[in-house]
């Protein structure tokens, strides 16, 4: 069988969101990934995040490259258009799609091979271009579909299933994004839904490129002892420096936050994120400080998670810089696009 249809069963008592939709209505087709794959947990968090935001499915665009992670765009929100492109080239598809219609919500799902090896050029330039999209890297340190080769995110000293030890230094997508001036950089763990869901929601609402590096263990090829991307290692070494609450637009902040410990950030659409610092020494709004903090911790084998950096001044977002019309370019009537015959007749004199 080439694919499995997922039965659409819904119970009348399932909770609904502001659109009257249940979580089930945000699901996609059946996953064909291995049982226990971290990516399926990320998929579940995306579904939860979209349901929580009461996003209209047709307003979402799902994009991916090639690999296990890239397959997952078929496993959530089947009412959205999806584009599973070629290996490492999803950012260019996203850039073009976003140029054509700035009004939709774009979510790209990629992996460490797709993003940090074959596609690193496109990732880097999508960050630089500041395309308004959420870009998730489901990072497991290995190539799954080709059976367990190290990827560019594999740590020095990590062991492959067959015993090889990696000696090449890893590329850390979080440090990379900070270097490039990304305006929203986060790290999370597929097993921490409570942390991941608000990050996804905030990333979708951020006006600009939002990167979330999600540690998402590969149960088949990279979950053994000696691996630094296993469930066990991740639970022991990944710690939040900041907790993020996402507060949708028009919702009152109900919880009291201790002054000095929490930083409220208003997002483009009127929603907010409240950053609660777990380490008082950490400042997620200062890019250089964030970089130094993450790098120092990495040296001690500590992986910092949470919303690591946010800059909500959106002046460098692609359409802001381009001064693109507010109406989506794909909806502008032809009459407004063609200069017409009279203009052409006049123009001809320039060429005589």
């Amino acid at each position, binding site marked *: 069988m080439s694919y499995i249809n997922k039965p659409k069963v819904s119970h009348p008592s399932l909770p609904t969101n502001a659109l009257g939709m249940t979580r089930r209505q945000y699901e996609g087709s059946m996953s064909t990934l291995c049982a226990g794959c971290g990516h399926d947990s990320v998929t579940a968090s995306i579904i939860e995040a979209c349901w929580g935001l009461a996003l209209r499915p047709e307003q979402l665009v799902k994009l991916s490259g090639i690999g296990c992670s890239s397959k997952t765009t078929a496993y959530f929100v089947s009412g959205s258009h999806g584009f599973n492109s070629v290996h490492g*080239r999803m950012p260019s598809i996203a850039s073009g799609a976003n140029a*054509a219609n700035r009004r939709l919500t774009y979510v790209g799902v990629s992996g460490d091979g797709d993003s940090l090896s074959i596609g690193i050029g496109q990732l880097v330039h999508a960050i630089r271009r500041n395309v308004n999209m959420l870009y998730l890297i489901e990072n497991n340190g290995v190539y799954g579909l080709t059976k367990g080769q190290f990827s560019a995110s594999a740590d020095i000293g990590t062991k492959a299933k067959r015993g090889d030890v990696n000696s090449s230094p890893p590329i850390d997508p979080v440090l990379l994004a900070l270097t490039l001036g990304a305006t929203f950089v986060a790290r999370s763990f597929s097993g921490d839904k409570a942390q991941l869901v608000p990050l996804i929601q905030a990333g979708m609402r951020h006006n600009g490129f939002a990167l979330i590096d999600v540690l998402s263990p590969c149960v088949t090829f990279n979950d053994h002892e000696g691996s630094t991307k296993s469930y066990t290692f991740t639970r022991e070494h990944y710690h939040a420096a900041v907790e993020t609450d996402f507060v949708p637009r028009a919702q009152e902040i109900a919880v009291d936050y201790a002054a000095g410990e929490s930083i409220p950030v208003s997002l483009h659409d009127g929603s907010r994120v409240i950053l609660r610092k777990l380490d008082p020494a950490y400042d997620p709004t200062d890019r250089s400080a964030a970089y130094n903090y993450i790098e120092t911790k990495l040296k001690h084998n500590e992986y910092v998670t949470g919303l690591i950096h946010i800059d909500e001044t959106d002046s460098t977002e692609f359409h802001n810089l381009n001064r693109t019309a507010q109406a989506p370019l794909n909806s502008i009537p032809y009459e407004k696009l063609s200069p017409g015959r009279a203009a052409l007749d006049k123009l001809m004199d320039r060429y005589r």
Partner: protein
Amino acid sequence: MPGLIANANRVNDFVMKFANVNGTGSASANSLIMKAIFRMGVPVTGKNYFPSNIQGLPTWYEIRVTRDGYAARASQVDIMVAMNAETYSRDVRELCSGGYLIYDSTWPRSSLLQRGDITVIEVPLAKLVNENFDGVRNRILLKNVAYAGVIAALIDVDLEVISGLLRESYGKKPKLLDSNTKALRLGYDFVKENLKSPLALRVEHMDKTRGHIMIDGNTAAGLGCVYAGATVGAWYPITPSTSLMDAFKGFCERYRVDPQTGERNFAVLQAEDELAAVGMVLGASWNGARAFTPTSGPGISLMNEFVGLAYYAEVPCVIFDVQRVGPSTGMPTRTQQSDLLICAYASHGDTRHVLLFPANPEECFYMAVQAFDIAERLQTPVFVLSDLDIGMNDWMCPDLQWDDAYRPDRGKILSAEELAGLEKFYRYVDRDDDAITYRTLPGTSSKGAYFTRGSGHNQYGGYTEDSAEYQGVLDRLKRKFANAPKYLPKPAITAAGGNEVGIVSIGSCDGAIREALDVLRRQKIDVDYLRVKAFPFNSDVESFLKSHSTVFVVEQNRDAQLKSLLTLETSVEKSKLHSILSYSGFPMSAEPIVNGIRAKLAEAPRLTAVPRKS
């Protein structure tokens, strides 16, 4: 002063070549002369032979004054304006017997006089300019204008026309206007006072350029994209396609910016490479914008993977390939038609693509518009195969026309209302039995949602590894391609009827072929001519091949790529086809065509090329 050798008295029919140093501002002086001749009503062509360099290397500009309106490069040079000491010896050699050599005699070169069959005209340009102007850069620039003045006097260009052009260029900068006018007069007056003028080769007012313009193909194609309603352009700079996007952007800044808000109805994305450029085009087209990318050979090589995806997932995509000399980096500033095969079959697996072949800037404009209509109608990549000669040189063309009744053919796109009326939407089901299926745009309605993928898919858009489901889609794509010619421009055929000998060609060979046909006709050899405008081939191509016993395939590459395509995609007998090839990097001239045809016909005297019908 040497006495001028009498030449045949040729009015409005000769070739001037300007040998310059790249980056010295000679281009504006050369186009000043060309435009002045054009404004005198005399047909003219300008070919720029420039190096891949910013400053210092030799560069040439060739102006053909052609009362008969031929568009091709001529194969001889009558007047050489030798302004580059480094290339003197080859420039002297290139001049035809009886020709004129003009050089800067501030530094006399008696060795130049060794060729007895030419006339050397000495003008102390640097001396004249240095005596009258200050500043190194200023002197270099104005020396060009001074030789324009020399030429004007020698070939009798209307000085008032040139002055008019200068006023248009520098009207708002009186200082520049003054210095340019003074430099022009320096050269002009020197000739009038010291030399016999005009030469036997000269221009006279005509009335053959009315209703025409001088424009390059990249500008015309960029303008076509604007009129087609394209809103997204993505590109990576590459010679010789760069000026196409520059033109698009320039026209958009003029016509697509809201004067009140400054908001722009377009987006130009300068990508990190050609892989990304074409990816952006796919993303934008998939999302319902008309999008395109201009590139050249090396870019096409990089785009192959995405082109295969666009073919298989059926995403419209317009690619302008302004061809240059390959393989590899090749000669980036020279022209060729050597990307036919890579474009026709771009990407791995079974793929075939629609190609359009404009022959001149005018067709670049109209075909740019057609390319978008075809790409959206067929939901497939469309390549517009221009070349450096068309793209970067100024050609005389009829005024571009526009019909305000035109509306883009967006193809089969379902609206939210149409989707609501459907029981269920499937992306690749052939509902109309024409092999073209319906698509939907993101944001329309969740009922129209589908998953676009380059992996095996069935007609419902679902992933598949089932042979029958996979083949079903692949076979429909083949039918779609077979049906494509009805949406494509038909070939242009010039046929007397009854001729056994024909020419089949594409694109910018057209000018040389038309001229060759005239030459052959004067020699009592009549040859039919079919110019292919699109691939897959129209059935007219098949009929033409069938009805001619000898067919010359004229093209600008080494490997006879058009001939290969004809043998692969039609039932023509291979032995009937004879190649006439030009792949020097210079635009084709009529000479090799005339010679090639004559030689072949002489070899086989039984062939009759004259009409047999009584």
